[in-house]
């Protein structure tokens, strides 16, 4: 009885707050840009990490920067949390709404403002899709290099928030390396620009902290990206290996030989089987692991590089080598890799995607460790890696309807992340911390380091209104996690979202 009564008080409080916030927002936004009924706000309850759900208090859909500034000023005055959202394809719950917060959808900021072939730059609004930039730049012989696998749908604003990578970042760098200028607003609603159209800016290198800050330091509305000339040619090698260890070591050998492939990806046997079933790319189903190794550049460069790559891969014990003969075949080689996630969705009711990065030389060791974890937790795990960057995407297969499986899956994932940190790596290479890896941040960073990051957050956003509760775990949470971890190795109440 008591619990029910306090719950209804909570609900009434929330309703009152909603009315207050909607009334304030209605003064600066047309009514169709404010969503507050649950049937309208429910579609925003999660991002690509659907295990975590929360309906926001209000969703707003501004269409210009003046409205964004107004919304932020109102939220700042009323002390309402603001969660910016692009396409909602993020994999770590970075855009998970706040129960008492405004979800700021930037979907209407979808205009490519200009593409300047002379300076090889594009100025785009934050809601422009990643692939749309390359599509628009193609007529000038240019492209935007970072290519996260969700590039059809994900937006450049989200890419900046996550410092997105992709299969080509070994050679072309991450989002940070391909962005020149970011325009956005502070929590107070002040216009700020980080970076410049030139190669540097006076003052501190703020761009580096804003890129990858998961919407916690500023709301981004416009991005100037660097475009690159489309390589004259690209060619991909598909190499098979009889055991996973030699595949892992081949990756190090390629880099050690002074080669810098445009892409260097690894899939293990179960993953290969899953994607082959899905895309029929002609993968070698007998191989314990497959490496995709790509070269791009001028015709001369590619010829020279492919010959050297083949030499190294053979010397590393490749059992079969196939070289793409034309663009169609090259894309076919990649089709499986690019569809690894949906293919996993076909072979298991649910999967949990990990994203840690380790030093390349530890790849073989890590793969063997994951193999033994499969035994330990009695769950299957398929592996697809941005091997050249040491960035792993083990996909743990499970059934979320079985609480015990979910439970084991979470422990499996936590052990992968802890092993990665122990091997000198990091808990997230490109998907971000969001809410998903808050506990892992306790493992990777000391209390003083986490406090320093909170201090940075306060420097940009003194009231803590931008995407609060993400990325940085509180001291208290880490203490709890440490206790649970040491004494039981299990998280109680696995059904509860923990953030």
């Amino acid at each position, binding site marked *: 009885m008591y619990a029910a009564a306090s719950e209804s008080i909570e609900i009434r409080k929330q309703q009152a707050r909603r009315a207050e916030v909607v009334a304030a927002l209605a003064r600066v936004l047309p009514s169709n840009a404010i969503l507050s009924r649950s049937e309208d706000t429910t579609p925003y309850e999660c991002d690509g990490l659907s295990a975590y759900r929360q309906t926001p208090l209000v969703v707003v859909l501004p269409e210009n920067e003046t409205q964004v500034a107004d919304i932020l000023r109102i939220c700042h005055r009323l002390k309402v949390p603001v969660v910016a959202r692009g396409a909602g394809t993020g994999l770590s719950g970075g855009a998970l709404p706040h129960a008492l917060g405004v979800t700021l959808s930037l979907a209407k900021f979808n205009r490519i403002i200009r593409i300047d*072939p*002379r*300076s*090889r730059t594009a100025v785009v609004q934050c809601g422009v899709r990643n692939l749309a930039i390359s599509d628009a730049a193609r007529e*000038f*012989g240019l492209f935007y290099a970072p290519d996260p696998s969700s590039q059809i749908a994900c937006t450049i604003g989200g890419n900046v928030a996550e410092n997105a990578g992709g299969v080509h*970042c070994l050679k072309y*760098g991450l989002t940070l390396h391909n962005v020149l200028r970011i325009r956005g607003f*502070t929590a107070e609603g*002040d*216009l700020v620009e980080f970076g*410049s*159209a*030139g*190669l*540097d800016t006076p003052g*501190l*290198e*703020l761009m*580096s*902290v804003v890129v990858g800050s998961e919407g916690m330091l500023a709301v981004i509305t416009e991005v100037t990206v660097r475009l690159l*000339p*489309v*390589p004259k040619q690209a060619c991909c090698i598909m190499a098979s290996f009889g055991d996973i260890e030699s595949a892992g070591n081949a990756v*190090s050998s390629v*880099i*050690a030989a*002074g080669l810098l492939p445009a892409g260097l990806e690894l899939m293990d046997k179960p993953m290969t089987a899953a994607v082959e079933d899905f895309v029929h790319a002609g993968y070698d189903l007998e191989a314990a692991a497959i490496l995709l190794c790509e070269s791009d550049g*001028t015709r*001369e*460069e590619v010829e*020279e*590089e492919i010959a050297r790559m083949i030499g190294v891969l053979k010397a590393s014990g490749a059992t079969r080598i196939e070289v793409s003969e034309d663009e169609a075949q090259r894309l076919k080689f990649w089709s499986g890799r690019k569809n690894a996630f949906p293919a996993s969705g076909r072979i298991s009711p649910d999967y949990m995607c990990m994203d840690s990065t380790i*030093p*390349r*030389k530890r790849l073989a060791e890590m793969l063997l460790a994951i193999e033994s974890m499969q035994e330990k937790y009695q769950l299957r795990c398929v592996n697809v890696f*941005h091997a050249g*960057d*040491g*960035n792993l995407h083990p996909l743990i297969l499970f059934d979320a309807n079985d609480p015990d499986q979910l439970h084991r899956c979470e422990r499996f994932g936590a052990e992968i992340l802890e092993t990665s940190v122990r091997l000198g*790596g*990091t808990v*997230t*290479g490109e998907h*971000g*911390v969001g809410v998903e890896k808050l506990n892992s941040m306790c493992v*990777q*960073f*000391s209390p*003083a*380091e*986490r406090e*320093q*990051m909170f*201090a*940075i*957050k306060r*420097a*940009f956003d003194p009231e803590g209104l931008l995407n609060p509760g993400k*990325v940085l775990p509180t001291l208290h949470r880490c203490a709890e996690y440490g206790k649970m971890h040491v004494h039981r190795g299990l998280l109680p109440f696995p059904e509860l979202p923990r953030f």
Partner: protein
Amino acid sequence: MDNQSPALQQLADQVIRANERKTALEIRGGGTKAFYGEAACGQMLDTRSLCGISSYEPTELVITARAGTPLAELEAALSERGQCLPFEPPRFAPGGTIGGMVAAGLAGPARASVGSVRDYVLGITMLNGRGEMLTFGGQVMKNVAGYDVSRLMAGSLGVLGVICEVSLKVLPVPPVSATLAFDLGEADALKMLNSLSANPLPLNASAWYQDRLYLRFKGARAAVRSACETLGGSQLDCDATAWWESVRDHHHPFFATKSANDAPAQCLWRVSVPDTAAPIALPGEQFIEWGGAVRWWRTNASASAVRQAAAQQGGHATLFRAADKSAGVFSPLPNPLMQIHRQLKQAFDPAGIFNPGRMYPGL
């Protein structure tokens, strides 16, 4: 990094004492870039006691070194394994350190094609204003766990903390390098630079001085050869490697101090603009780098005239070398940005002990 190391303990103690007394510290490595930025003040904190390469994995393309490690030592170790710091940090004089290189954030001729210091910093261990040792980033290429504090330290001029150890991404030295020269006026040279970079050529560096454009190509043998054949131009009549090093280290006659002939008021300005910016007209002499994105000016024009010329082209101007820096070294920041700077300073260094005023007065 071993937090028990006596050298590190000593520095941490010095920071803790300064923090308690709220007294300024001047963080200093080799002192080769002491001329850069606003004037330093305070008790010296010498990072050279933190010395040595901690780890180097050529197959990982990563090197980790303590802040006081001489840049020359690090570059020699890389060169032995056929690798390098592709951004060519300027050395100005012998004795510079890795910590100083990161804190200054300056890059050399190849910057426009390979990226800057920031782009190669993977991780950092530092002391904040409370003397706490903190590590951010790591030794891996991709890392989005938390805010990227390590890259924030690049070019921070020591105002946020003491860099103790740095992990850097390194790259193989390209197999072949070739330099071509073209006799071109400023406008034509800029036009050529802008059109070149739209092609997938292995252009690695460019410079223009006294109606001559210099282009350096680096990469696979076949690609460099084909670029040279396509473009023509002439060979350099001197050692190309030495010539580019003179640009990198500012020993080239344009940069070298010409005390006898220089008018006393002449300053060296670094004007940073989009590479497509039109020619900038100022009195004095100009040297262009980075595909047109940096225009060095040796001029006695007033600071406001130089800054205005830069701003008109969407850029900014830094008073790089001058006897009188009262006009301010760095272009002023808009208010909201300056406020973030002040709050970040407070977040790292609440007592304001590290290199106060070195970047902006009051910071």
